[in-house]
């Protein structure tokens, strides 16, 4: 994929985000009353418009460079298999972080952590070495619980469905 195409896509996506942002800001935040009262709306609105301008510039620059600087570097094209792998890793890491937060609140730190670690080890790292998995899960959970929860007195969530600790 030529980097110019990437820039054009990035620019267009950012432009769309910036415009949606600006409209939302304009519609939902009350404006200032003038006379030195800048108000809560001015800054986010200005930033949205600046981003729109910059991303539009990015799109134009990629069009302009096409005719004037034909060398415009290429970025490596990954094989479809690698792209799919990367996508699955990104998705599973992000989903597991969010699930970790959700579980922490529902079943508490002590149960959520080994579940997270085991899932990551098996689903993302494809580990089938039970000794590594078990020692990672137990070690991280107990280590953090002892050091942060007990020794340093940090508040670790106890869970609303089941509560341990």
């Amino acid at each position: 994929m030529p980097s110019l195409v990437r820039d054009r896509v990035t620019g267009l996506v950012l432009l769309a985000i910036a415009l949606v942002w600006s409209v939302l800001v304009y519609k939902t935040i009350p404006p200032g009353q003038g006379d030195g009262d800048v108000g809560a709306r001015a800054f986010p609105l200005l930033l949205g418009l600046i981003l729109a301008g910059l991303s539009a510039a990015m799109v134009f620059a990629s069009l302009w460079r096409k005719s004037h600087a034909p060398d415009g570097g290429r970025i490596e094209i990954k094989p479809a298999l690698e792209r799919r792998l990367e996508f699955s890793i990104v998705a599973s890491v992000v989903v597991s972080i969010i699930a970790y937060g959700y579980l922490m609140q529902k079943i508490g730190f002590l149960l959520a952590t080994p579940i997270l670690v085991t899932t990551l080890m098996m689903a993302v790292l494809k580990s089938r070495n039970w000794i590594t998995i078990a020692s990672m899960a137990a070690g991280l959970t107990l280590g953090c619980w002892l050091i942060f929860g007990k020794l340093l007195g940090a508040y670790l969530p106890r869970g609303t469905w089941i509560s341990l600790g």
Partner: protein
Amino acid sequence: MLKLTRRTLCGAAAALLLYTGLASAPARADFPEKPVEMTVLFGGTANAIGQILADLMSKNMSQPVVAVSRTGGGGAVGYSHVQATAPDGYNIVWNSNSVSTAHHKGNMPFNYEAFTPIARISTEVPALGVRADAGWNSLADMVKAAKSADKKLKVGISGKGAFTHLTSAALFDALGIADKVVYVPYGKGKAPAELLGGRIDAAIQWPGQFVSHAKAGTLKVLAVTSAERIAIMPDVPTAKEQGADIDITMWRGLAAPKGTPADVVAKLESAAKMAVDSDAFQAASKKIGFTPAYMGSSDFGTLIASDDDRISKLMGELGLKK
């Protein structure tokens, strides 16, 4: 024995489930059976007093009270957390007038009625400070200067709709110069320095922020807004003494979600009373600059309701109400 066989059958995880399931079932007679979580809504002084209170209450109960900070949204985040928990007394909130300001500002869908009051613990009184070289010795001096000046008086507050803003509005209204004032919102704690820097003419903040500067003679505290003088600044007259008829104090106290059983509330209430009466709490109040002011559950409920009414009106007048 039966339990034991079941445990072995169900496996370790299920056993834990069962065990904790049993443990968290409400058994009011023995409240508390597990630590009580006290949600703290703000950092700074609120957090410090909350931590001390939690410590002292723990000494009077069979289980500790744990202060957990849940800040943000002008208190709305913490209130919402506690309001959504089961009304069993294990989740209480270290509340303040912010329950009214957050609601009327439109940041919280429920109001004070979503909570059962436990006890009022302390009060803090806003104070009006000016620069010593302004030459004002009383509110009257300031009013006179404001009326004769062609520029508006700039008054530092913590933020629009903050308690210091409401207090300022009430005070300057009572002084009859509400139209001669511009409120300048600063982040927390910066207003005294801005006053020293000469960029504002007066600031309504908490006494603790003025004490050192007042002793050093660079700032002067003209009034406190309560009906009576306060211990940390006994020489400073009240606004009422100077003819501005206001009585505004901010309280802090404890509340539990609505529907918490009366006997549980009573247990927490008595633990709170013992904590407030303790020497350690009294000593801390002098250092931090607040007034211990225990008030029982029912009186506290009446106070919250009447204050809510006042705050609602005041915010309506200021156009801050949603």
